[in-house]
């Protein structure tokens, strides 16, 4: 009997070891350990043994059974692993093949700048206001201290539709509208971004261009000052153009502000050393600004003795060109899809 057991054990072990796949291994299990298996048959034959032999042989058979089960389990795991590995090997792909493109569209660079500026100013409590592009002479000029015949109107030769209606030359028209709408009821903190139009078209001027303007009017007691304007524009420039920008305020002249300034930004290409972008000056003119002219306040319903504030404005197209290194303003309006598609990634924070 013992011999028989060890014979079964030996041949079972051999068959287990040589089984190449899970089916063969299962066949081995059935052959020896199944209901009709050889080892099971042995156990059944135990009734013919003597009472002394029975426990000895019984435990021997059980030991073998356990040993075989362990061995099968172990080999089973190995075979499973091998099988998975084989499958993985078969599923190997060329990860350098092109991807399935999942492509969003893109936002026009000028609108990217507008949204960035709007977010910045909204975070400082400014409202974003809008107004008509087909504007009246009254709001575009007269209410901004630019009476008919004023020489400063030269700077902005306009597209008139009638004697009264024109395409707005500046987003400041919205400032006048905002003031008239609020009429001293509240202080104002607003920005307006949008399209503006002037009668000029050459390499550096487009007859249609983008502008953004800001206006702060508050009670005199709150002392909105030139220093505040300077600080605000520093934030603007450092957010949009370059964290390390320096600003230079140059006294200038605009009819709607007094005092008025033009603001130069240290050249972000050469860092102020002088290059072709800044025409060797180290500075690039970017903004116009000033303290709101008392006539403008008065004409639009705010008492200059009680209120004061500042206004600023800048060209969006130039900001977009600076920010993204676009060499020619006309690219912004040509709308070549190969150009548009480039503006599809997140800006660097």
């Amino acid at each position, binding site marked *: 009997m013992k011999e028989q057991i060890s014979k079964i054990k030996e041949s079972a072990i051999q068959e287990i070891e040589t089984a190449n796949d899970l089916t063969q291994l299962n066949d081995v299990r059935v052959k020896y350990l199944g209901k009709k298996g050889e080892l099971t048959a042995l156990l059944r034959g135990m009734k013919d043994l003597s009472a002394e032999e029975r426990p000895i042989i019984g435990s021997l058979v059980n030991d073998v059974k356990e040993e075989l089960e362990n061995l099968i389990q172990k080999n089973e795991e190995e075979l499973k692993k091998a099988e998975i590995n084989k499958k993985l090997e078969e599923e190997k792909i060329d990860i350098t093949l092109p991807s399935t493109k999942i492509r969003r*569209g893109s936002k026009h660079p000028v609108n990217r700048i507008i949204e960035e500026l709007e977010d910045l100013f909204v975070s400082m409590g400014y*409202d974003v206001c809008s107004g008509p592009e*087909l504007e009246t002479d009254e709001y575009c000029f007269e209410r901004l201290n630019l009476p008919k015949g004023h020489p400063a109107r030269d700077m902005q030769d306009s597209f008139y539709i009638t004697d009264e209606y024109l395409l707005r030359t500046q987003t400041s028209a919205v400032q006048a509208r905002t003031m008239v709408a609020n009429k001293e009821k509240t202080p104002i*903190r607003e920005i307006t971004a949008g399209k503006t139009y002037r009668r000029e078209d050459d390499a550096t001027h487009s007859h249609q261009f983008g502008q953004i303007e800001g206006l702060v009017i508050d009670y005199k007691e709150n002392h909105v000052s030139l220093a505040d304007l300077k600080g605000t524009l520093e*934030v603007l420039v450092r957010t949009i153009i370059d964290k390390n920008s320096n600003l230079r305020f140059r*006294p200038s002249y605009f009819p709607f502000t007094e005092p008025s300034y033009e603001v130069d930004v240290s050249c972000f290409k050469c860092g102020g050393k002088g290059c072709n972008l800044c025409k060797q000056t180290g500075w690039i003119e970017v903004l116009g600004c000033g303290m709101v002219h008392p006539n403008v306040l008065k004409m639009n319903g705010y008492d200059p003795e009680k209120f004061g504030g500042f206004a600023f404005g800048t060209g969006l197209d130039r900001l977009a060109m600076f920010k993204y290194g676009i060499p020619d303003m006309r690219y912004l309006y040509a709308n070549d899809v190969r150009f548009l598609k480039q503006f599809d990634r997140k800006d660097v924070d």
Partner: protein
Amino acid sequence: MKLSTNFVKDYIDIDVDVKTLAEDMTKAGNEYDSAEKLVNATNLVIGEIKSCKPHPDSDHLHLCKVDVGTEILDIVCGAPNAREGIKVIVALPGAELPGGVKIKSGVIRGEQSNGMMCALYEIGIDKKYLSEEDKNGICELPQDAVPGEDPIAFLGLDDEVIDFDLTANRGDLLSILGMAYEIGAIYNKKLKKELDMSHKENGKDVNESLKVDVQTDNCKLFLAKRAENIQIKESPAFIKNRLIASGIRPINNVVDISNYVMLEVGQPLHFYDSDFLGNKLIVRMANKDEKLTTLDNIERTLNENDIVIAKEDGAIGLAGVMGGLTTEVEEATKNITIESAIFDPVLVRKTSNKILRSEASNRFEKGIAINSTYMAIERACNLLEKYANATIITGTVVYDKTKTENNLLSDRNIKIKYKDINDVLGTNISKEEILDVFKRLDFEIDYSDDEEANVCVPRRRLDISIKEDLIEEVGRIYGVDNIQGKLPKLEMKQGNYDKTGRAIRNKMIDLGLNETLSYILINDKEVHKFTTDEFEELKLLDPITVDRNTLRYSMIPSLYKIYEYNYARNQKDVSIFEIGKGFFKKGEIYGEENKLCVLMSGIYSLGIEKKQVDFYILKGIAEELLDYLGYENRYSFVMPKNIPNEFHPGQTAEINVNNDIVGIIGRVHPEVTSEKVFVMEINLDKLLSKKVGGMKYKEISKYPTIKKDLSLIIDKNKTSYEIEKELKKAAGKLLTNIEVFDLYTGKGIDKDKKSIAYSLSFGANDRTLTDEEINEVLNKIIETAQNKLHAELRK
């Protein structure tokens, strides 16, 4: 304004170099374009031609021996006027001339040449300033020139020029005197001397021989004097040089003096030939269509907005802009009448825009202080006496209405509190520093205490009339660089912006479209395209080109232009959108509307599917947007009654929201393009005026949904919309969804029929539906399909 630093140094000492001066002026608000030497050439010396022989190998070159003080140089020269004995300007080997020309020793046609004899234009004096002789040959220096010395200093051309780009309010800086005050304020210096106006006056008072009759309000001040027996000749070198440095061509001593005084004082003068003038000068508005031949020999047609100077028998000059031909000062002129006047800036500007923008008109436009008018006429007499041997006639004809006019023309007092200055600037500038600024500007202080001062602004500063102007002056001279930036301390509040506009933009981008930015100006031929709406087009009064002469109404022409631009560059997969405006006039109303425009053509790909664009892709984009904005189940696409000519009549729909047409969608007519191009425009103002409710959670049924398919053969012209509507009505609320999953025409189906298959979903929130319930609903559906829609079931 080109500033000759030599000229301004007559009145103020300048201790810094020209670049520093230009930069310091810029910081004070006076921007410049360039700051450089008038003659930008090196290594120039005076030479004397000792001998001049023809070049053996050339018919026009000369071989010259030139004494340059230290040596005799062999120089080959091509100038026709090169000859023995003349004094010349020699550029030595190593010299650099304007335009990057470098002079080297060399051999010209076999002969050694060690330098170059120069014409004035070769050392940087523009030909337009030169006499005929100087244009055609080398410069001949006067005989007292000493070989070896600096010819530029000898000629008085050792000047440095700053070309300022001045702001419109600083008319005072269009004069040497104004510049001197400004420079003085920056460097804290006083003027060296006053304007020399001294001269003798002779004979009977001019008022006896000349009357001035001003018939218009547009001339507030008119002065006239007369000078007799003048000698017309070339101006002295300093006058010519200063005119050239200032960008004005020298002509003769008398004309040059009028320009010189204009540069110096800022008041343009006009000289008339008295012998052609008669004894009366009239200032009036021109008559309609009045004719005048101006100095440039062009006959001008005038109108009632032009101010003219006239005799009884007609206009002789356009006030402030250009004189007339008949009274021009010429070689033979002996007696002149000098006009110094102030004309209305706005009208001068209008006239000069029409005729000619000149140094004179520029000054009238910016405004002239009345003391300049009085000073200029006396200064002209001073110079005419000195440089034209003129006899000045006693007295001045004066018409002066400035006293009764606004105080801007005279000195004015402005009271200012130091606190106001510091509040506006955000500074803490002391009383002493503030008063010092006014002193530097040469503004007198009438009165000052610890809180405020009374500042007397001289009349030359026309730009200063209110206290804010004085605050600007303090900021300017104190230096804006010295003001520390900070953020305003204001009450906290929330900022608002248009979230919907952005949401629409981002949704379109999410759907794979590229945003464009197009011009709103289009050709008037395009403006009624892609629309059947009635409106009056808005044309520009003065367009730059025909292609941009009208404001667009529909945005589709703009986007179609972009499509064409890309197509021409072989970019045929175009999926673009833009949010913009359309403009119109309806009745008396001028209006504009916000619109969303989409154009798609070629391959559209979003994710794994790459598809040729068709109507249904664009419709899908429209639906996705409308659903996103909250209009789910409130819109439909309907066949339009009137289809614009540029749309495909069989592939176009109106977008209907709440029974209101908000947009159009369809294929561009094959006659417009053979490519498949699809466009859509939605009137956003109209769409967004329809309110939507907030987003609310809907209960998800815990019970299963049962799906059934239904395939119908039905009349080809029955639209899916109509079929669905009827089926839904028949089914009631147990039908939770209905979707088309197949559409077939062709083999096996009658020509006037189509096969359309629906997937129907049934379910309820409170129970699992029984087979009986479903069959009952399904039977109702089938019954409706057969009886109402006359459809046949397809097995």
